[in-house]
Each structure stands twice: as structure tokens, then as C-alpha cells.
């Protein structure tokens, strides 16, 4: 889709304005996702893979975008997924949620619903019990932004 509807233009504009007023860099530049990721990983490199991100390719309503994440792991006492962070690189604030798993989880899987202000990448980083890091990224096209409501 190349042409924007009036509603889209207004919603994206609203987000940019909100971001500018609270002192975050404008919404069309990068948000704070890199800082959040760096804090999570401690600067260590992450390998791609192991994480499955189940997200719609096109979200008609950015206010409730269903997200299911799953990480390949035996989930035993010695080898399990500790935590997974999800960030959105085009929202006024990148942080979405951090999931904390335990060996008692059985499988490292969780679902929730999130807000996406516009078309952007959803990025997940997982930290395993041995400290290794994995990442995954998926783009979601948003037709109506979830900023405001």
C-alpha cells in the first residue's frame, strides 16, 4: 500500500507529536530500542534462531496485535530459557514486555497482545540458562496505528 489514508496520517502524526513533547527523539528516527537491547544483552552478541515469533504479517488494528513467542529448549533444570525481551523499533517507546520462564514452565511459550503505532519490526532476544543469547525479528505492517486509541 503506497497511499496513506487520512486516519493513518493523523495517527502517525499524533505519535510523533507525543514523542517529541516528552523529550524522546522524533518517531521517525530510531527510538530507544538499541539501549533496551544493550541493557538486556550486556553488549554480548546474539545468534539468530531458536525463537519463533508468531505475529500477523498485516495488523488491521495496531491497538491489539496478537503475539505468540516460543523458544526451542528442553526446559530442564540445567538447560532452560531464562527470559525473553520483546521490543518494537517504531513505537514511541520500544519496550513491550519481558517474559521470565522457569524449568517448571515445561515449554518456553507465551502469548499476549500488543500495541504497534505503525508498520515496524518486532524484535525478540532470549537469554538461556547458560547465558547464551538468541534473537529473532519480524516486520508487522500496521494499517491503523495503536497510539492513542
Amino acid at each position, binding site marked *: 500500500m503506497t497511499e496513506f489514508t487520512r486516519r493513518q496520517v493523523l495517527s502517525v502524526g499524533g505519535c510523533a507529536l507525543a514523542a517529541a513533547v516528552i523529550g524522546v527523539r522524533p518517531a521517525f528516527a530510531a527510538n530507544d530500542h538499541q539501549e533496551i537491547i544493550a541493557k538486556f544483552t550486556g553488549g554480548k552478541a546474539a545468534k539468530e534462531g531458536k525463537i519463533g515469533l508468531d505475529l500477523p504479517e498485516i495488523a488491521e488494528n495496531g491497538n491489539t496485535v496478537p503475539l505468540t513467542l516460543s523458544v526451542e529448549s528442553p526446559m530442564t533444570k540445567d538447560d532452560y530459557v531464562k527470559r525473553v525481551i520483546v521490543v*518494537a523499533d517504531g513505537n*514511541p517507546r520500544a519496550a513491550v514486555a519481558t517474559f*521470565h520462564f522457569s524449568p*517448571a*514452565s*515445561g*515449554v518456553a*511459550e507465551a502469548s499476549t*497482545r500488543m*500495541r504497534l503505532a505503525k508498520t515496524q519490526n518486532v524484535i525478540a532476544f532470549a537469554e538461556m540458562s547458560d547465558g547464551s543469547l538468541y534473537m529473532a525479528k519480524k516486520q508487522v505492517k500496521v494499517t491503523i496505528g495503536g497510539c492513542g486509541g
Partner: protein
Amino acid sequence: MASIKPRVKVPKTAKKGEVIEIKTLISHKMETGQRKDRKTGETIPRNIINKFVANFNGNQVFAMDIDPAVSANPYIKFNMKAETSGEFEFTWVDDDGKKYTATKKLAVN
């Protein structure tokens, strides 16, 4: 504001070793702190559920740190491997410091 009510769906029974699914939902507007009042132009203060914890027999099974990008009426689904019978305790923490809790029993055979 409407009363905040947590809802949880957990199977009543499970076989030992079975991975069960737990679904939770809490009614909450999840005000992001990014929106403005249309009349006054003032920013509406942030008010969200910022943490969710699921314990089983006192041990943490799952937890989630929640940011404003989680939708209103946050829905969370996760899993647990059923090993023994016991009780779940679910806690949601609001920005204003209030805690909402729910408990559910699970029988493992």
C-alpha cells in the same frame, strides 16, 4: 473507573508430566502516558499493570514485566509442566501500587 477484575482459566486436573496451558486476562485500561486530553492538551498520566507473576505452591513458574505497549485488558497465556497437585497464585501489580490476585487449584493424578 470500572472495577478491575482478574480472570484465569486453568484446567482442574492434569496428568503427571503434562504441560498445561494457563490463560489470564485482567480488565485494565493500560493508559500509556503518551496520550493527551483532547480538551486541555495535557498528557494523561501513565497507569498500567507493570508486572504479572504466577506462582505454584509458592514457587515462581512464570512472570512478565509489562510496558505500556501491551494492549488494554492485558491477556497473557503461558504454560506449566504439571508435577504435583497444588495451588496457583496469580498477582498483577498496578502502577499505583495496588495488587490484584487470583488463586486456582490443580489436581495432578
